[in-house]
């Protein structure tokens, strides 16, 4: 059984989001996603400063098994990327909710948060997968 963190919001495409008090969202992929991918060997990250739209492909994770797109769950500007993943992509397997975060965005439309799932809804979504 994969781990789902209570306080996060989740996208159908298995990204998680954590929003701080300044409206900056940290984005990563869920434990369920990393487990399904298997050993991750390459990560591509979005450009710093890029403007991204919700549901847009902005990053790539490549595992021994397959390449998979990562979608931005929210619209906004990319303010930070986790460059440590470029040299240590296995961090995503080891710590999907913590050191394995992908990027941060200053969100432009808070209403989009309502379209994301809470932990319970995401758990159901994973069961249906």
């Amino acid at each position: 059984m994969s781990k789902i963190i209570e306080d996060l919001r989740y996208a159908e495409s298995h990204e998680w989001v954590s929003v701080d008090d300044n409206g900056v969202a940290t984005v990563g992929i869920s434990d369920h996603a990393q487990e399904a991918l298997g050993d991750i060997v390459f990560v591509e990250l979005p450009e710093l400063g890029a403007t991204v739209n919700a549901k847009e492909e902005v990053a790539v994770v490549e595992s021994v098994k397959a390449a998979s797109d990562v979608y931005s769950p929210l619209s906004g500007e990319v303010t930070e990327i986790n460059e440590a993943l470029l040299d240590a992509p296995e961090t995503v397997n080891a710590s999907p909710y913590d050191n394995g975060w992908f990027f941060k965005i200053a969100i432009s439309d808070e209403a989009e948060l309502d379209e994301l799932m809470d932990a319970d809804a995401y758990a159901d979504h994973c069961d249906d997968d």
Partner: protein
Amino acid sequence: MGKRTPLYQQHLNAGAKIVDFAGWDMPINYGSQIEEHNQVRHAAGVFDVSHMTVVDVSGTEAQQYLRHLLANDVARLKEPGQALYSAMLRTDGGVIDDLIVYRMSFGYRIVVNCATRDKDLAWMNSQTDGFEVAVTERPDLAILAVHGPSSIETAAALLDQTKGEAVAGLKNFRGAELGDWFVARTGYTGEKGVEFIVPAEDAAELWEQLLAAEVKPVGLGARDTLRLEAGMNLYGQDMDESTSPVVSNMAQTIAFEPADRDFIGRAAVTDDLAAQAQGNLPELVGLVLQGRGVLRAGQTVSTDRGEGQITSGSYSPTLKHSIALARIPMGSTTCQVDMRGSATEVRIVQPNFVRFGKKVFE
């Protein structure tokens, strides 16, 4: 629920992620495929390959039968225990399967692929006419492959003195019949190691002993990256009934001498060899991608001589970049592959990437 090997419970105990493999519930990994891969390159791992099909061939004309059935020549096996890799061909040269054949005290033992079991047995049985031969499947046997630099020492130390000495003393590509066990120094990883073909009821105890001796369980995921690094073909992916062994680097496993041996597919592969020498047939090469990204089976590649296709591709945990096998026009010198929309240069190398833990191509 799929078919299960005698070690299914052991896999669950070891935390295996189970997947369907040609109708069998098999462990794809026990956590991390890359760690399992590295374990085999640096120490020792054990694979349950009991899903593979063991077929015993006996009878006074077993040798004549196999000299007709197989592209390699079992007459090269001079004494019990010797092993040979061979293709089994259709009349038109298409590869029905690849296999290992061992000379045994009773005749021959053949290990064929799991996914091809039904058609292999049907084909083998259809070719027995005129030979005094018995073809007997052995579903009562389990196969444990123990591979890695410390595998033979570790395995030998677990066995009783007679078996242990026999295993420790095995030469490469040789096996020994030890009561109802057969142990051979063959494998599919590019490391040294032994394969134990044992009665199903002995499998769990051997498995537990190996694990207690720090031999780690290794799933089918790592088995695939290990064989790819070793440049070994996978049936159904790098070759099949639509491809000649000549375009799969298997020409050297076809015994054309003696010239009067009439094996199935001989005329076709003789023609194919001539056609390839003229540059009219493609070849199977190795590809190396130094940058980021992973080459995948099915991708089209473009060379200076035309188009080709990747037949197996993955990430090499040993080399830390992607490698692949690809069938491309003969004599190509440059090769490009489309990586997510951008044409990326890849190097063409000998299809052999890693042996005994070390990079082997230039």
